């Protein structure tokens, strides 16, 4: 097991290195001179050249990359030239919002998707299965901005149950914080559950054909025990993968949902950085989010081993 963990950890290193290279390249290859952006269009060529020298922009690309990487490894992701905030400060300020949104959305998505998947698989091809599979397709094809607007219309405008936009930190007012998060989380969850449901449903249907399920029936176990103990665990590997990918994706914030519901998360930070051409923030945030993604995937790999003893013992 320890061997497995170490192998997985080592495998993350080249991925992280590649991620850092890509984020650096993307930011560097964007058209426009950073010095010119900072100084504005009133700047004299001498000033621009001087700033370029100060920022090391006149150095070759590989030199700048190594420099930046060295700083990053020391925990210095750079500082926004607009707000003066460091990348880490900006992210630390925004990440609780995106994290909470991600957790609530994923929780709601699983809360809807998993029971529906199990119910569908238990009677595959039945009326409920066909109806839910169809609904999942319909939900998948609805863009999140449309869902968001419909939810706002229904729950905020018509019913007045929930606020449409806004945010207060959980530490200040837990209840109203949760109320602010319900609609955005639900918007995301409604896009998440069809994927969760379809993946788990088809894996469950395959598992239910297995000999060991026939034996579980022959042993006279209760149907609920067969579904939840014998079938769910071996069917949930793909589900864990999908959930991991979803979490990694939502970790980077959600541009559209955060914008619609005015949530100050990572997504909004990125949008702001793009509009203001704040490349330092952009580059740092993208790298941090990518690192988060890699770490989530590492956790997913660990979960495989928890779920399937054969992986734990190196048999599969």
């Amino acid at each position, binding site marked *: 097991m320890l061997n497995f963990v170490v192998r997985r950890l080592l495998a993350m290193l080249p991925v992280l290195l590649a991620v850092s290279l890509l984020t650096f390249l993307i930011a560097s290859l964007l058209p426009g001179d950073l010095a010119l952006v900072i100084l504005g269009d009133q700047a004299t060529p001498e000033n621009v050249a001087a700033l370029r020298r100060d920022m090391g922009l006149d150095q070759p690309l590989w030199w700048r990359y190594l420099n930046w990487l060295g700083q990053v490894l020391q925990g210095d992701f750079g500082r926004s030239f607009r707000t003066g905030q460091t990348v880490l400060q900006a992210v630390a300020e925004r990440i609780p919002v995106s994290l909470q949104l991600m957790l609530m959305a994923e929780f709601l998505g699983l809360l809807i998707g998993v029971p529906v998947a199990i119910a569908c698989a238990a009677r595959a091809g039945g009326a409920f299965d066909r109806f839910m599979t169809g609904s999942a397709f319909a939900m998948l094809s609805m863009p999140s901005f449309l869902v968001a607007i419909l939810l706002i219309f229904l729950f905020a405008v018509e019913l007045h149950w929930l606020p449409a936009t806004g945010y207060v930190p959980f530490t200040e007012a837990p209840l109203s914080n949760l109320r602010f998060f319900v609609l955005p989380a639900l918007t995301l969850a409604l896009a998440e559950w069809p994927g969760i449901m379809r993946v788990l449903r088809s894996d469950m249907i395959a598992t239910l054909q*297995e*000999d*060991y399920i*026939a*034996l*579980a*029936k*022959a*042993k*006279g*176990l*209760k*149907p609920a*025990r067969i579904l939840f*103990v*014998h079938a769910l*665990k*071996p069917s949930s590997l793909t589900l864990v993968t999908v959930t991991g990918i979803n979490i990694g994706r939502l970790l980077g914030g959600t541009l559209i949902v955060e914008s619609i519901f005015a949530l100050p998360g990572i997504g909004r930070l990125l949008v702001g950085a793009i509009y203001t051409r704040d490349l330092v923030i952009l580059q740092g945030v993208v790298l941090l989010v990518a690192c988060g993604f890699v770490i989530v995937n590492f956790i997913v790999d660990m979960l495989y081993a928890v*779920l*399937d*003893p*054969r992986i734990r*013992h190196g*048999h599969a």
Partner: protein
Amino acid sequence: MSAPLLTIADVTVELPTPRGNLRAVDHVDLSLEAGRTLGIVGESGCGKTMLSRAVLQLLPKKAKLTGRVMFDGQDLVRLAPESLRRLRGRDLAVVFQDPMTSLNPVLTIGTQLMETIQEHLELDAPEARKRSIELLAAVGIPAPEQRLGQYPHQCSGGMRQRIAIAIALSCEPKLLIADEPTTALDVTIQAQILDLLAREQRRRHMAMIIITHDLGVVAGRADEVAVMYAGRVAERAPTSALFKRMHMPYTEALLAAIPKLDAAPHTPLPAISGRPPDPTRPLRGCSFAPRCRYATGRCREAKPALTSAEMPDHLYACFHPIQMAEGVGA
């Protein structure tokens, strides 16, 4: 003789296929008394596994079953799901063919044993655990206590089949169905597993059905043998009577197809030529007629019924039964 524990009466199983209905089991009648062993023998696709699944009520969802399966006074076909569930695992147990796939890979052996015990017997966890250890020891598993915490992939095939047998025996069933219990195992393990089954069957006085394609497996172990062909029982007799004088040419051919250890090198096996008939297109006459060396025009026109001649418990379905044992072998 007491009333039979299991009576299979006029059971037919049909499976819908794209080419039409496949009749896997065709009007089968069988019975088994408590404490006795019945061997069901036939080649692949003859319906023996479907018949066992019909008894267990574990047929594929689309399968259509007619007839009655009376077990211990109840018709399993018409039993409510909840009553059936209470019966399965307790009075009616099964060992499947492939121990590599019949144990759940993500649950420990202890869990898979104890859940059956706790489902049917009023035992708390420590008692169920104690019983599990005793069961594993009874089926010949060394260090049973450590095995409880292990997963199936940490055990060999033979070991897994022993565990599957322990699970089947866990609630002292009245009937154990062993569906090709040794087919997936090494030859050296096969005899051990069969002897284990026979020993436990005697000790617990349970009835057993051994399903196999190998007449050798049932030879010394079954009280009665039913030979199946194309979904029907072709011949049925007490084991000794069957091996002494078989009447059905198919039984003879099946026996002749067993390789003999004392045969000279390079002796060709007298394999049964041809294939079983397409079960989606039933033949008018005897289903073995196309492959039978005794077949006549009558065999192709009418289906012989399962009847007995001189011995009341020796049934066969043939117009031209082999009269003497001379015809055996090749």
